[in-house]
């Protein structure tokens, strides 16, 4: 054969989610990325996350710009909406789409080139606006599509495939997001689905912009000895900060009042969870601490991963802008376009 296709046959014992779909129903077209690309693992993690959330595929929109990472929106949830936009402009296009239809789940997929070079301004403002979306950065430290030049996230001293060292300091999207007031900041690794899938689920359900920086090795141009974004380097330097899991919103479970160190709580599925009061530890709601931690890790040549920061009380773009509750696509025409009279009245207010 000259090209590969994935046979439609599936394992007969595959479990189904609440919508009656198997995980294979969330797949898309066959990837044309290099064999072993980290981005394909991120795609597989997204497929798992959306399946586990029982996300109706037609209620999601996949947004992307240009780059290897931006191709991946074609490789999952083939029934979903999608917009493959201009280089670096995915955040703005997503902001516009979200303004028009706030009911969809937006999954934006970008890369270190798309988001940290050409689209850095777009990313910054999407964070400021707190657009409700999952914002993935497939971060491999190189421009893969143009044959492996250093990207803006390449670390000082890391080498290209030919051995040349990078001299410019990297832009860290996690620190950037923290300084810009992001309400959900996480970092993970394409080779660690046990950590990545729950973070993606939480990000999809977060009420605001959820930025997830994913170390996603480029097997072709940046998986060699001098690389700081290779599979091997990442595995050797990964420090898991918090073991995050995502629990979807259900009826409130009240823990019994007790003075004991361990309290037993019965959950929705009948199982019991034993809560032990944790000692003073990492607080993912403390922006200063999160920033300090990531900086400290950086100085120790470590990669901080996990759910690094979350602010559940942050207001998203619609709340800040006090937009109408109903998605614009569903708004009756008279309300969406109230006519020249209303426009003139509005204009009058600016005079």
């Amino acid at each position, binding site marked *: *054969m*000259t*090209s*590969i*296709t*994935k*046979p*439609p*046959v*599936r*394992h*007969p*014992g*595959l*479990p189904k989610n609440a919508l009656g779909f198997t*995980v*294979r129903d969330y797949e898309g077209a066959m*990837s044309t990325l*290099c*064999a*072993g*690309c*980290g981005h*394909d*693992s991120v*795609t*597989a993690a997204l497929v798992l996350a959306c399946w586990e959330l029982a996300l109706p595929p037609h209620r999601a929109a996949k947004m992307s710009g240009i780059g290897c990472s931006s191709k991946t929106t074609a490789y999952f949830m083939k029934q979903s909406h999608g917009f493959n936009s201009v280089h670096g402009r995915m955040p703005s296009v997503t902001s516009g789409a979200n303004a028009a239809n706030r009911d969809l789940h937006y999954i934006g997929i970008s890369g270190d080139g798309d988001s940290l070079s050409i689209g850095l301004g777009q990313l910054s403002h999407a964070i400021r606006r707190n657009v409700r979306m999952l914002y993935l950065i497939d971060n491999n430290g190189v421009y893969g599509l143009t044959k492996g030049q250093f990207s803006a996230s390449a670390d000082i001293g890391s080498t290209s495939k030919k051995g040349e060292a990078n001299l410019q300091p990297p832009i860290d999207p996690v620190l950037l997001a923290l300084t810009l007031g992001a309400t959900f900041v996480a970092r993970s690794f*394409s*080779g660690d*689905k046990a950590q990545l899938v729950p973070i993606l689920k939480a990000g999809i359900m977060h009420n605001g912009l959820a930025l997830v920086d994913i170390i996603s*090795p480029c*097997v072709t141009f940046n*998986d060699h000895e001098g690389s700081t974004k290779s*599979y*091997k380097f990442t*595995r050797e330097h990964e420090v898991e900060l918090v073991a995050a899991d995502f629990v979807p919103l259900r009826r409130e479970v009240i823990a019994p009042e007790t003075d004991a160190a361990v309290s037993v709580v019965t959950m929705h599925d009948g199982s019991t969870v034993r809560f032990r009061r944790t000692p003073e530890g990492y607080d993912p709601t403390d922006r200063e601490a999160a920033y300090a931690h990531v900086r400290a890790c950086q100085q120790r040549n470590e990669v901080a991963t996990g759910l690094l920061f979350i602010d559940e009380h942050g207001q998203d773009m619609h709340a800040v802008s006090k937009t109408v509750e109903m998605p614009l696509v569903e708004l009756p025409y008279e309300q969406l376009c109230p006519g020249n009279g209303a426009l003139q009245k509005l204009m009058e207010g600016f005079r």
Partner: protein
Amino acid sequence: MSLHTDVTSPHHYHKVVDCQWACPAHTNVPEYLRLIAQGRYTESYLLNRESNVFPGILGRTCDRPCEPACRRVRVDGKPVAICRLKRVAADLRDDVTPYLPKAPAVRNGKRVALIGAGPASLTVANDLLPIGYEVVIYEKNERAGGLMRFNIPAFRLPESVLNEETQCIIDMGAEVRYSTTVESLKSLLDEGYDAVFVGSGAPRGKELDIPGRWDPGARDKIHIGIEWLGSVHFGHIDKIAPKVLIIGVGNTAMDCCRTSRRLGGVDTKVVARRSRPYFKASPWELEDAEEEGIHIIENHAPKRFVIEGGKLVGMEFERLEWTEANGRQTSTVIDTVTIPCDEVILAIGQDNAFPWIERDIGINFDKWDMPVVDKTTMECSLPGVFFGGDSAWGPQNIIWAVEHGHQAAISIDQHCQGLSVAERPPQGMHLASTKMGMHSWAYSNDFNPSSRATMNHAELVKRFSKISVEVELGFTPEQTATEVERCLNCDVETHFTASLCIECDACVDVCPVNCLTIAPVAESEAELRTRLSAPAENLAQDLYVSEALPQTRRLMVKDEDICLHCGLCAERCPTAAWDMQKFALVIPYAFAPSDTTIPVTV
């Protein structure tokens, strides 16, 4: 405890090739199907013949243990039509005579006697003649073939096919003494043979001794199935009365009812004690009989033959209801019914009988008066005397007889060389990469979603006009072309090299049937099975477990159960840790020890 799977010996990879593993003779099915796909029928036939000796015959009559085992059953419900594809190779091949082994000009001076010229004995002859043995076959009938000739009706197996495949072995230089019954094993041994092989079959049909069986008005109308089929073959019987009952529901019963239908038994019924799931006949034989208008009656136990006015007029049965308790089936009688009939054919099983073997010559017999035969060597307690086929442990099928013959031939050769027969030559294997380039493999790795081809049958009117009209017409070229592509090429193995893996998850992510997992180290296989990407509940199928992976010391685990052998794991592997490698089992034969056999390769 290390769970690491050893793939340096053939066991694991052989078991992955379900059809070959299930076949008693371990025929290399995927390889011969690929040869058919390429139109190389002669090579396909010869590869078949190496292990199963009678591809033309078996392509029509085999009990096909390979098909229920076929991976395709687990994938989409229906196996590849392996058996009938074998027939395609046999039907479309060129003359194979130039490629068959011949006896050497100088014999090795050893003489072997084979009793019966059925599939087991002919296999022994096939294996021993090329290496210089002098082979003498004793056959009580005038023609060779044994049960294949006298018990399988011509509408299932044309005589020409049978003649060619039996005669080509005899033509290697066997001496056949036709119409010669062995009356005494002792006197045969006295003739100074270096070894004797008993392949005389299970020639005695079971009796049904119930009231009326020996009544003078009835006994001529009650026949023993295999004897009756033999009489039809010889032309002693060429008609039967309209209303016929066949007692029993095995494959012999199916041959009897369909033969009866052709000889005038327009109202032929098959009566079974049990319900359909417990029938011994193969499902396709039941279907073929029913297509010919045979009515199969379940849950009826014979009680007596009904004779009125000195004439057989029917049979009385107890209608049974079966219940299961503690895994045992018990029956209760509901009522009694009489089914009218003119003639009855008993097809309730066969026994071996050895009145011609003296009990004082050193052969031990067990409590059922059967000779004690070693399951591996085929030797009985008297060194130099071997058994095989139905005469060893009662009725099985042709393909088992062939395998018995191969093993007996190895034993006979070792016995004649003064070697221990218990020390068996080992199996070997070849593994070779099938990678040809980008997206290119040396086998057809694309999954073909077609459903199983249906065999075309001769029209009923034509079938019933003459007993020798073959019912199955064989596959058309189009059917063949599609059906061979349904084969998943299970012999093209997913071969893993742990030291190359960078744990990028690409294989795990791409596998269409979720059979791969990178799992943490586990204590036991049972524990590992609970941690896989998809449920691994088929314990009959093994797990492949790698050595510890270089970066995280985790394990690559593959559940062999549903793997499509599509090669996508190897396709998406950036380091070629996964490769698709063609496995070829090297089977030792008497004529070719394990270290010299190189199977036909693509």
